[in-house]
């Protein structure tokens, strides 16, 4: 379980996160929703120890993050995190060289799934294909948790459909996923838990299925209630 406990983050004098708390379980898709600039990416960065916190604590399976944690949890940011002059094959080799959790079989499967060519340079790829390579490099790791930052941001509808398809496949099965987005249309039906964020605070968090069954509301309905009262 990922436990985010009362975290606060300041950039200069500006408080971006103000006591944010939530948990994310393995085997569930947790979606952090909020408009741009509310601190969604900062939360993911903080979970991965890519930005220091001013207050609070984050635990992954009961421990603070350490070097071996990166074999168990991975982060897929909205921009590709590989050298632009590398080919897809070289990028995959880089991951294989450094991660014991790299699963070459799954990487090959993902390559076919996304219809990507191994010898293509990252620099030459379209934005949609870069997002797919980014996803491939993250999903091919045998990790317990996947963090995804705006995976649908700025890419064409066909690539979005293909990426959304990943969530229903065995490629994500049994893993804990934390996804940030402000466009939930593509994955609304897949989300287990929702964390609604505004102005650095959690406005509401709920189990989407419970809300659907008990109150007959969709995630978007709850969002309307919270953001447009």
């Amino acid at each position: 379980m990922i436990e985010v406990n009362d975290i606060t983050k300041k950039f200069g004098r500006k408080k971006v996160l103000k006591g944010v708390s939530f948990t994310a379980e393995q085997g569930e898709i947790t979606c952090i929703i909020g408009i741009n600039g509310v601190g969604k990416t900062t939360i993911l960065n903080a979970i991965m120890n890519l930005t220091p916190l001013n207050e609070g604590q984050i635990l992954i399976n009961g421990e603070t993050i350490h070097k071996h944690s990166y074999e168990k949890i991975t982060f897929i940011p909205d921009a590709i995190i590989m050298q632009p002059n590398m080919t897809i094959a070289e990028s995959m080799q880089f991951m294989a060289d450094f991660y014991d959790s790299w699963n070459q079989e799954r990487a090959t499967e993902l390559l076919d799934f996304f219809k990507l060519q191994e010898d293509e340079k990252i620099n030459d790829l379209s934005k949609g294909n870069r997002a797919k390579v980014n996803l491939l490099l993250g999903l091919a790791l045998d990790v317990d948790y996947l963090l995804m930052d705006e995976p649908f941001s700025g890419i064409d509808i066909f690539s979005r459909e293909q990426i959304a398809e990943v969530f229903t496949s065995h490629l994500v099965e049994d893993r804990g996923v934390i996804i940030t987005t402000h466009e939930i249309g593509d994955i609304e039906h897949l989300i287990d838990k929702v964390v609604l964020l505004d102005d650095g605070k959690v406005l509401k968090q709920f189990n989407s299925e419970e809300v659907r069954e008990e109150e007959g509301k969709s995630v978007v309905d709850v969002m309307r209630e919270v953001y447009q009262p």
Partner: protein
Amino acid sequence: MNRFVKLVNFELSRFMKVYLTLAALTIIVQVAGVIVKANEYMAKANEAINEDRIPMAQFVEQNGAMSFMDFTRSLWFMGPIAICAAALIFYIFMIWYRDWLGKNTFIYRLLMLPTARLNVYLAKAASIVLMVLGLVSVQLIILPLENSVFKWMVPVDFRSDMTVGQIINWDYLSMIIPQTFTEFILYYGAGFMAVSILFTAILFERSFKWKGIIAGIGYIAISVIIFALPVLSMIFLNREYLYPLEILGLEVALGIVVTAMSIGVGNYLLKKKVTV
């Protein structure tokens, strides 16, 4: 192969094209320089002997025999060395900033590798040291070649021969190519210390942005003061109470302290403070 070695290999490969260009530039410009300088001298000699009818011995007496030093003191020789040195100093900054700036977000990947973040720091430092050693090796390899070209172009009566050993002994070259193992440790140890101080200053900036620039400059100043303490104390106290060997011993000890401090602070910043 452990992850540190893989990281060093990766860092080296990222700079390899520029690095090979620098090595090629050094070889081409220096060899061309020997040819140009030798031609200039021989053209002058031929003009004096054939047109002005000056005897060869008199020409050599008046102008001096050409030595390899005439070439090593020229821009043809020093220029490429200066360019390589400037490129590597620039690269000390680039090796970090290229991972953060522009479209490149590779720092995410480096910081999320399942290895100690200190390895990222040390791999970058080791790459710089290896690149410096590589370029010095290129220089060492081409010196005999250049000396041969020089001997081939300038007849024996017009030249004053030097061995490669004598050439290397010459003032600034002896700094680049140390004569003894102790000198090697001292010069390159000092170089490694300078790299580690700069790396840590860069990480201050990457951790605290504008305040980090001040902290980084402050860190450089403190490191230099600590390292220069034996010399500074004698200047301010106006008393030479230490023997040169004692000063050397203290400098070596303080150099080790400053390097260890820089690596330690750099490791702390990478683990706890740095932000993507």
